[in-house]
């Protein structure tokens, strides 16, 4: 995918650009706000990574300018402090996601993947299907191989999020934010516990593992290999 990285700090920019290249993507780098905005407005990108603090034109202004020019390119915001308000401000300005520096590259990659391939039609689906796993969003029922699976509301939300993002790596932090609305790092294994409970209902009684652990990154749900 084509990704624009707007970042003035050379070290962070290298980290992201080299990482993207190694993953087989095609990154462009802009070291200043005005150049970044110009590129973002003139070329087609699958996603833009913007630093919050930039000389001349800051990240918030870039996102606002981009959005007011009518472009809906997915934007990930990078904030250097664990800013309580930075996240809200970034999302209000029109960014789709945010990440606090320093971050693991796998975290950025997972978020880029989740954003860049989002299909606008998917939101209106009433039935999600991955292989023989089927979720009815209206009736709130889940079936695998035609057998009903009884899920708690939280487990249902977790599975729904994973099914909507089938085949994509979902990090611990992404699950915490999207499923539980936790914007902090818990000191207990909240995610592991819930994923393991879900597995015991969705995977264990059936043949073929759908929820896989990706070491050092997170989890991915897909048709059994």
């Amino acid at each position, binding site marked *: 995918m084509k990704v624009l990285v707007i970042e003035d700090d050379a070290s962070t920019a290298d980290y992201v650009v080299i990482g993207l290249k190694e993953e087989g993507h095609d990154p462009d780098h802009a070291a200043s706000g005005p150049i970044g905005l110009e590129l973002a407005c003139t070329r087609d990108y699958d996603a833009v990574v913007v630093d919050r603090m930039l000389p001349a034109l800051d990240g918030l202004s870039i996102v606002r300018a981009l959005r007011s020019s009518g472009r809906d390119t997915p934007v990930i915001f990078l904030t250097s402090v664990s*800013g309580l308000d930075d996240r809200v401000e970034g999302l209000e300005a029109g960014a789709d996601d945010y990440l606090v520096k*320093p971050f693991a590259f796998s975290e950025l990659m997972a978020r880029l993947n989740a954003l860049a391939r989002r299909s606008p039609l998917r939101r209106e689906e009433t039935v999600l299907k991955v292989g023989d796993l089927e979720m009815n969003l209206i009736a709130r029922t889940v079936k695998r191989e035609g057998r009903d699976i009884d899920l708690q509301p939280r487990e249902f939300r977790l599975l729904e999020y994973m099914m909507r993002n089938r085949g994509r790596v979902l990090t611990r932090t992404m699950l915490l934010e999207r499923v539980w609305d936790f914007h902090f790092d818990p000191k207990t294994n909240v995610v592991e516990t819930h994923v393991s409970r879900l597995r015991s209902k969705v995977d264990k009684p059936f043949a073929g593992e759908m929820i896989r652990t990706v070491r050092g990154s997170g989890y991915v749900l897909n048709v059994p290999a």
Partner: protein
Amino acid sequence: MIWPEELRSISFRVALIYTGFFVVSVLGILGTTYVIASNELASTLRAQITEDMDHLRRAHAAGGDEGLREDFGELGEAASEDRFFLVLNGTGERLFGNVPADLWQPGWQDGRLGRRAIAASPDLAAAAAHNEDHEVIFLALGEAIGPYRVMLGRNSHILDETQEIILSAMWIGGLVTAVLALIGGFLVSRGPTRRVDAIALTTRQIVEGRFDLRLPVSRRGDELDRLAADINAMLARIEMLLSSLRQVSTDIAHDLRTPLARLRQRLDAVRRKPRAAGEYEAAIDAAIEESDAAIATFHALLRIAQIEAGTRRSRFRTVDLAALVEKTAEVYEEVAADAGHRLVARDLDRVDVEGDEELLTQLLANLIENAINHVPAPGRIEITLRRAGDRVHLDVADDGPGVPEAERAKIFRRLYRLDQSRTTPGSGLGLSLVAAIAELHGGTATALDNRPGLRIRTDMPLAPAA
């Protein structure tokens, strides 16, 4: 021009302005008195003269020239240095009177008499002798009655004297008022000036680093006291922020040196001689983990600092606390169960608070995680939410080993860890964050004895009723 301190004070300026007003009003009152009294006196004199003249006319009408002559005799007896009269015949010769004939003039006359006229009349001379300027102010009415020309007059110097008395009263009154007001202003301004001086002195000492000092507040409760109280509250807040800042920097220095040193040792150890690829990978993974832990500590410290700064208050909304507790407890039920504990949320009063939902969730999550991580399994963790007047008590209680009384207040300090919990996970920041979030919401977090175990109570104000 350098004024003495008292004269530069606000209260003295006010006193000065009042002095001005007082003097102007004293002069106004006396001035009015002056005009009214002068007019009154003048018209009284004129009325007396007119009445005497009318009396002569009536006497002439009743008794003719003869009758009039009798009255002239009476006039002569009444004549004095204050009362004058003059009767001339048709040819202008003086028949009676105590003033010279040439003063005769028809109609009213009012003015000072010359020296020659005074010298010609003993009564006028006597009147003049009483006056400092040796003159006579002469008020007279001249009319023709029958064959005579009659003039009746008064010494109106008395009018002049009255006016002078009032005028000097004005000067003295104005002067006394001004002096009294100035002295009063000086005295009035001295009290507040002294108090302002005391405040200024304290302020200078605070500027020089005595952050423990507070401005003097008297029991009067006046404007100065309210101002001083507000400034004291501000100072307390600043002192709190400063000391927390100092503590954070010390804590960071102490606490982050250890993981950095460990990180360096590990990298150094693996670098010393060539190793297998697997060993390098393991060392790098360990190094990443170690630095992640240090970064997490940094984040937590920054987050606490940001919460303490209080900027987050602008995003406060009404939060249904019971719903928040239910939601969070639900998330942790299974986590607690996996660790061998039982997590129960009960007695949840329906209460709203003004707050930040995200931070309140973190507060509760930290308390639950603290219990999960420090209570030996199997433990019972109980969350209750009770309304207490206009406050709400959010309690997270466990039946673990608890915290010795002497240490209970310290567990909310940054990076503070009990000896018994050195080996359990955590950075020693979870409860500091709880305290910071509670304080952001106008509340407190306290550790209580749960007999057995620990009960941490977050006491917050309820949202004001809509």
